[in-house]
């Protein structure tokens, strides 16, 4: 038996395999957009042929972090804002794993914003799903980094004086090689985008609009939504950074004017992933590092033999 025989296991996968017996029913509020992310993942993973035991899902803290309790894979429910550094190290340690990170807009664009920018810049081969509901849900309705200017809450009683974060533009500028936005109310598109994101060889960022019926009634249901690929009103080249940037800008402005634009915004299939870049400069082994610890024939190097003579 090999060390990690779940990896590359070619078999039929049942969607139910991803449903844990301990907590099969999520405790998100009725009507919450988070259900759609869970559903899209349960649909996408069998389709891309990734079993629960070759998938590592890393989440942050918040309603979105509960995803780990409802999607049965190897999981790491980390701390607020830090899913990305944990996830990308796991990918470096074992590139054969399917690594998915997920968190909310506060988690990813607020407290973890620095990690988001740098993980995108490095272009790790992983998927990052941000549950964007423009609110802090689990802590009961405070203004979040994506809440629109003027948003009133108990912590911003006079209305937020801040411009919201523009996640798509930020992602593109930071260096993500796949940037998309989908919405909970558009399950078919969501599934397709998650599949593309998982299959993309690089950092795939999906800004997933997940309505919060409890704390963010203003944002309603993110309807009506428009798919920018399907609508005849929009025509731009997703491989062109300038056109992508313009479309993102329009999308981010339109959201707060009641127009929900979604779809693929930027796709760069040519840029090598970070792992490939590191291997090319000799800073990462070709074989997964995690395998080495199980290789009985591996001759572990000693500092005594390799590095000490220069000190003599």
């Amino acid at each position, binding site marked *: *038996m*090999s*060390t*990690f*025989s*779940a*990896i590359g*296991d070619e078999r039929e996968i049942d969607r139910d395999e991803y*449903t*844990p*017996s*301990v*907590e099969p029913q999520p405790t998100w509020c009725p009507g919450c957009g988070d259900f759609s992310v869970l559903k899209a993942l349960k649909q996408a993973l069998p389709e891309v042929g990734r079993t629960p*035991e*070759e998938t*590592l899902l890393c989440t942050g*803290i918040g309603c979105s972090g509960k995803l780990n*309790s409802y999607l*049965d*894979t*190897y*999981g*790491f*429910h*980390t*701390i607020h804002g*830090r899913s*990305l*550094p*944990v996830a*990308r*190290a*796991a*990918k*470096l*340690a*074992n590139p*054969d*794993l399917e690594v998915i990170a997920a968190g909310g807009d506060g988690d990813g664009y607020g407290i973890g914003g*620095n*990690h988001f*920018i740098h993980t995108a810049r490095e272009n790790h081969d992983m998927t990052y799903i941000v549950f964007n509901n423009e609110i802090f849900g689990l802590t009961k309705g405070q203004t979040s980094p994506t809440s629109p200017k003027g948003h009133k809450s108990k912590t911003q009683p006079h209305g937020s004086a801040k411009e919201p974060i523009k996640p798509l533009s930020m992602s593109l500028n930071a260096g993500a090689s796949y940037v998309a936005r989908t919405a909970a109310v558009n399950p078919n598109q969501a599934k397709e985008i998650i599949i593309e994101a998982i299959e993309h060889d690089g950092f795939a960022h999906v800004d997933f609009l997940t309505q919060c019926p409890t704390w963010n009634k203003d944002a309603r249901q993110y309807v009506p939504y428009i798919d920018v690929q399907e609508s005849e009103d929009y025509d731009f080249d997703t491989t062109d950074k300038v056109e992508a940037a313009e479309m993102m800008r329009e999308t981010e402005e339109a959201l707060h004017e009641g127009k929900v634009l979604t779809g693929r915004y930027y796709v760069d299939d040519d840029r090598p992933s970070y792992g490939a870049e590191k291997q090319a400069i000799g*800073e*990462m*082994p070709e074989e997964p*590092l*995690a395998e*080495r*610890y199980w290789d009985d024939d*591996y001759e*572990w*190097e*000693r*500092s*005594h033999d*390799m*590095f*000490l003579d220069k*000190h*003599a």
Partner: protein
Amino acid sequence: MTDDELIWRISGGSGDGIASTSQNFAKALMRSGLNVFTHRHYPSRIRGGHTYTEVRASADPVESRGDGYNFLLALGDSFARNPQEEAVYGNEEIKPLSENLDELREGGVIVYDEGLLDASEIPDFDERVEENDWHVYPLDLRGLARDMGREVMRNTAGVGATCALTGMELDHVEDLMRDAMPEKILEPNLEILETAYNQVSEEYDIDAPDVSVPTGEHDETQLLMSGSDAISYGAIDEGCRFIAGYPMTPWTEVFTIMTQNLPKLGGISEQVEDEIAAAALAVGASHAGVKAMSGSSGGGFALMSEPLGLAEMTETPVVLVEAMRAGPSTGMPTKPEQSDLEHVLYTSQGDSQRVVLAPGTVEEAYEQSRIAFRLAYEYQIPTILLYDQKLGGEMKNVPKSHFDREPNPTLGKTLSEDALADEPHSGDGKFHRFQHDVEDGVSPRSIPGQKGGRFLATGNEHDPTGHIAESPDNRVAQIDRRTQKLEAIRDDLDGEDTGSYTGPEDAEYGILTFGSQQGTVEEAVERLNDAGISVKSYGVSDMLPFPTEQVEAFVESVDEVLVVEMTASGQFRGLVQKNLGRYGEKLSSLLKYNGNPFEPAEVVDGFEAAIVEGDGDASGHQTTFVPAAGD
């Protein structure tokens, strides 16, 4: 103070090549058969500012900086700030000479570069020379180097002059230069070395050097190594192949050494956006089945508090190193202190479940780096290696054989897929990663990608499968199990012999210390016994779990104990009292927190003043005495 020693201090400006020149000279002395120990002093400044390195060399073993020094090579600060600014900064150019005079011993030698320095600008210089019986050799090192093509070679000229004045043969220095210097600069450097040597020898008739180089012999190959080197090699020999970090003085040394070596070993180093990420990456890599580390110094380590707590709660093995410098906040970035002890022991929310080791010497740094990895992986617990700018940067000779040990890449209680199949699982196939009743509290783990090993790691309290759980029974069972690991680790450490004892067993008095002050304290203990004072010392390395039994036995066996540490608030003494629960009336403190480590004489004088004379007034030193409770 041994008479038969050379303590050579080379001083100049930051950026003048003081560190590399001193390192080469120390190595030459080591190769000549001597024991060496270096001490660095440098400002937190990019270019310029007074810096020096001391090289102490003796036929006897040396484990500390000395008391003062006896040979000064003052090169002048070539990056001194605009002389017009003198009103603000003072004359910076002259500082490599003027700032070093206070610690020069009577009868010592001064060589200074008169091409750059004018001794007449130093108030009362001639009087002080006469008073202290110093031997002064003004040499135009810069002029000589300029004549021979490159001004930077004045360092080499200074070494040539040193050899001539101390009666040291040039061959070891020449051999080293051949090893260390690229072809292009080697020839002119060899030439200037010899020229300076000959000029000094001819100009001054040196039959009996004022201060001479002792002679010694090693019976086996020696290595010149720093604490940072030793920590890095210990990590490598334990199979660590992943490091993540963010630069910060003085931790950067370990990060750099690992980063340069890991690619040669098929390992991975990541320089990341901040220390939160750095520690989180180490946790992520370890979770995925690789032996991983991170580290920082005070401020950066503060950012690691959260990932550290996550490693505790998820029982992810990880080693963090913490290179202390003087705090609080940015403090004094290039100066040693031991005042992060409490920070490292207690930072992060909840009841701490971690291991903290503080090695005392370069040899221990290697050994305890290995122990840190072994404990982290065997017991699935974050382990912190606590050291400081002093231990990290000082160099000493260590026999090569010390490192001739087998590698240990094992991951600890990590199951193969075959073994996983026999372990308890839930109905849906979830592996019970966090079982309640297991030996030593260590629940075996699986690695993502393994069939039959699926589980959830979470920073929330969790049940055996990792699922978030808040039931009181489970909570108590999990906390008790995780705590049980620390008890097992204490027993384990008892077999590792990490403590260091010096002095007669039946001594009347005791000195307790921890970490990098150990060597200095041990030298002081030897001198005190030579002077007829019966005292022994115990250098403690295990900060958590604390060796309560051993420390209690030590304290119990003597009349009074002086606790020596580089903190202002007596943190180590507090830790001793916290763990022992009594003996407050027996423990007094000798503290130093001025940015410089103790000299042996400061410990000797401080001990005599505090314990023997009882008033604690050690005049002339910048140390602080804090009496025992009730005194």
